[in-house]
């Protein structure tokens, strides 16, 4: 028996040795390439952001505010059980600086008092309005309400529950302006947000079809009357790591892709689209888990197939602030969903992969997403398992393993620090020295611990997608930003029903 065990261990050792010898260099190269690509994206973003900041003086935001010709915007706010903060959110959205905008709230069959709160706060009354069916929808609209004054540009559409994507599609049908902004009900927009994301449409009205706004973590910030008045790092370590992650992967990463002309993901939490293009492509896919990613991919495919000259752009400032998960349970659910959505969308549009017809999207962005977004958690965890196995079997020298991992993760920390440098030289949102200490510490945590954990969750999501399991949305009850008193945002998480955090971003 002992001989059999010993033989088995020897065979395993030989196998691990062979595998490690075979993949040692490719894994290291993979790490080098993925982090170098991040650095390149950050470099592109830095160029763009510095240019953006230098243009601030003559950008002409005030002229846009006063312009009678600026394109009108319908802000679509899908809401499900958002009674805690919906009134403050809508008040803030109505008060955004923009010459012509309306707010369309779509209550997706909430079981709490979301609609009642709105009804009371804005003196809403029902009107008989038949919404057009420009975009196909599933659930029946039960009621349309508007303010009794008939002047405030707010519309509340109540419908049976059918999910966020269908709610947004109903909002697209109810929208009366040529541009449509999709905003989560729990998001807090900077006062100039609409000006920022609408400006590319005004500057290039024919070609611009979609813009994405930057998303940052609201946790820890002070909110008064639906506005961020003080930016602070969150108290939760998990949220602090996400602040750094959002900055590196989402904000600077997308700025880089936008600069490169191959942006394929606009977060559902804050994106603006030409309404006619949304109607043309059929709105959001209600069956998709990564509906925001899927939508942008569909726009790319459709417009390229029609040989149209078009642009999709990311705007790094201003910002939509959103709560990020502060418990592992909710974060796990979010990351599983994101990765599953990533897989399903990449698979759905596999025909575009490497296809020169789709230009930089097909030849660069999609191969990158396949290699460095979809497969990253698999390769990373496989490498770690092999190292641990190799150490246990004595195949790998401890000090060599240490050096190997130090190089791999040290480079990742370097990338995060590069992102923080760009932030410090451009927006420098977190102005306290204490916050700087926190972000520096978070740049290490992001790569040691957090990264491996999320890699595992992402694999779970991918597996669920491959095996066709039913997607279960995460649950996250929000405190909301209500009241005139300052509210430091730290979401309390319970198991009550409701939609999970809706940023469709993927790192």
């Amino acid at each position: 028996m002992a001989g059999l065990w010993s033989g088995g261990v020897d065979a395993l050792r030989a196998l691990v040795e062979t595998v490690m010898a075979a993949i040692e260099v490719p894994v290291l190269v993979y790490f080098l390439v993925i982090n170098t690509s991040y650095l390149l994206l950050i470099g592109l973003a830095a160029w763009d952001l510095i240019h953006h900041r230098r243009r601030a003086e003559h950008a002409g935001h005030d002229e846009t505010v006063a312009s009678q010709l600026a394109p009108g915007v319908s802000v679509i706010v899908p809401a499900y059980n958002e009674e805690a903060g919906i009134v403050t959110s809508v008040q803030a959205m109505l008060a955004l600086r923009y010459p012509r905008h309306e707010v369309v709230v779509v209550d997706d069959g909430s079981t709490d008092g979301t609609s009642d709160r709105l009804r009371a706060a804005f003196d809403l009354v029902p009107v008989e309005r038949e919404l057009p069916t420009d975009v196909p929808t599933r659930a029946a609209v039960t009621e349309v309400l508007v303010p009794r004054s008939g002047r405030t540009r707010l519309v509340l559409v109540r419908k049976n529950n059918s999910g966020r994507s269908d709610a947004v599609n109903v909002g697209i049908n109810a929208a009366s302006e040529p541009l449509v902004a999709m905003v989560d009900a729990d998001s807090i927009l900077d006062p100039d947000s609409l000006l920022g994301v609408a400006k590319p449409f005004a500057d290039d009205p024919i070609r611009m079809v979609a813009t994405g706004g930057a998303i940052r973590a609201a946790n820890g910030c002070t909110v008064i009357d639906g506005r961020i008045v003080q930016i602070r790092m969150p108290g939760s370590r998990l949220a602090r790591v996400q602040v750094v992650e959002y900055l590196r992967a989402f904000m600077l990463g997308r700025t880089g892709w936008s600069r490169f002309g191959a942006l394929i993901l606009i977060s559902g939490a804050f994106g603006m689209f030409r309404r006619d293009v949304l109607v043309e492509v059929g709105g959001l896919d209600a069956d998709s888990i990564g509906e925001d990613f899927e939508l942008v991919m569909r726009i790319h495919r459709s417009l390229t197939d029609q040989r149209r000259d078009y642009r999709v752009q990311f705007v790094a400032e201003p910002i939509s602030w959103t709560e990020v998960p502060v418990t592992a349970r909710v974060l796990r659910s979010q990351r599983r969903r994101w990765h599953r959505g990533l897989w399903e969308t990449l698979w759905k549009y596999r025909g575009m992969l490497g296809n020169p017809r789709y230009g930089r999207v097909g030849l660069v962005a999609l191969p990158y997403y396949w290699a460095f977004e979809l497969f990253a958690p698999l390769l990373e965890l496989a490498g770690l398992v092999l190292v641990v196995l190799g150490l246990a079997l004595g195949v790998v020298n401890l000090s060599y393993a240490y050096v190997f991992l130090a190089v791999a993760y040290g480079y990742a920390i370097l990338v995060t620090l590069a992102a923080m440098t760009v932030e410090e030289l451009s927006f420098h949102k977190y102005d306290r020295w204490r916050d700087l200490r926190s972000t520096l510490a978070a740049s290490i945590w992001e790569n040691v611990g957090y990264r491996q954990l999320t890699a595992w969750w992402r694999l779970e999501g991918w597996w669920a997608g491959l095996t066709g399991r039913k997607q279960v949305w995460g649950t996250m009850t929000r405190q909301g930003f209500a009241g005139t008193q300052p509210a430091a945002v730290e979401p309390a998480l319970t198991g009550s029903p409701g939609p999970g955090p809706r940023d469709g971003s993927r790192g």
Partner: protein
Amino acid sequence: MSSRSLLLLAEVVIGLSCLVLALVIVGARLHRVRATRRTTRMVAPHRPMLLAVASGEDAEGSARAHLASLPSATWEHVRSTAVVMLAKVRGAPAETLVALLHAHAEVERALGWLRSRSAVRRARAAYLLGLLHDPANVPALVPLLSDPSPDVRLVAARSLGLIGDPAAAGAVLSAVPPRDGRMGIPAWVAAEALLGMGLGVAPVLRGALASADAGVRDVAVTVAGAGAFTSVLPQLRVLLDHDPLPEVRTGAAVALGRLGGPRDVAALIRCTAPSSPTTLRRTCVGALGELGDPSAVPALTALLDEPDRRLAELAAEALVRVGTAGAEVLLRCVGSTGPAGTVARGALDMARLRGQMPAASR
């Protein structure tokens, strides 16, 4: 060199790079904090004077004299605040701020910057010259409409609009079409600039409406509608019927809705036919409502059953705007269980809330 040595070398390089970046972050913050404090300290004593000038409360001119006498090192810090204020004020306070900029040779500097190699500097200079509202700067700004940088072209057009000299209208319009592979200035920027130049652009506008370039015609119809240029009505009618570009026809419909009269109803109704593009149909229905002529009522009534429900909704709203004749049609439809009844009830609901119901129909 062995792979282990290579890894060790890489580790050292990465570690050092991390250290450098951490130092850059801390250094940048220290520099920024100090610079902000210094600027605040330098500007603070002069801020009340700036506010007095910008709010027009410097009747004796003492604040202006004080600010004009600032040494250049101090003025460098005050300058940007003065420029921001200049963008927000009009009349005498703006003139005083402009005089201050002259006193500190900012205008000469801006004129020099127009030839700078830096596009940001050229754009800043163009922006400042626009804020001065001085027609003497038009000849210096016009060449920037063909600048290699799209930013500079855009700022130059905006500045020409701020100055408001109709002499620049032709140049702004000619910067709209793409040239030499470069994007033209955005249509809305050109339109805003022309609107800022007032009625004096009418002759240029007439030429632009007949331009071979669709982008130029698009700008021209927008300006015609927003600026109430009634002298171009005959051209707008032609464009509505015959322009090959739907966007131009749509713009002409908007303009006719604002400026036209009963004789335009028939043409607008023709464009609501199902064969027209959706946007044009919807715009024409809105324009018929804007005109408010009762002769449009039968056509609008027929559209209440339209399969395009947004069009039907707009037709119902247009009927409200037509007045009593339109409202009566809607009231007759209210009892209907068909699609016309739904949009009629919706339009009447909204009209009541807005207090738009004609007295005879309440």
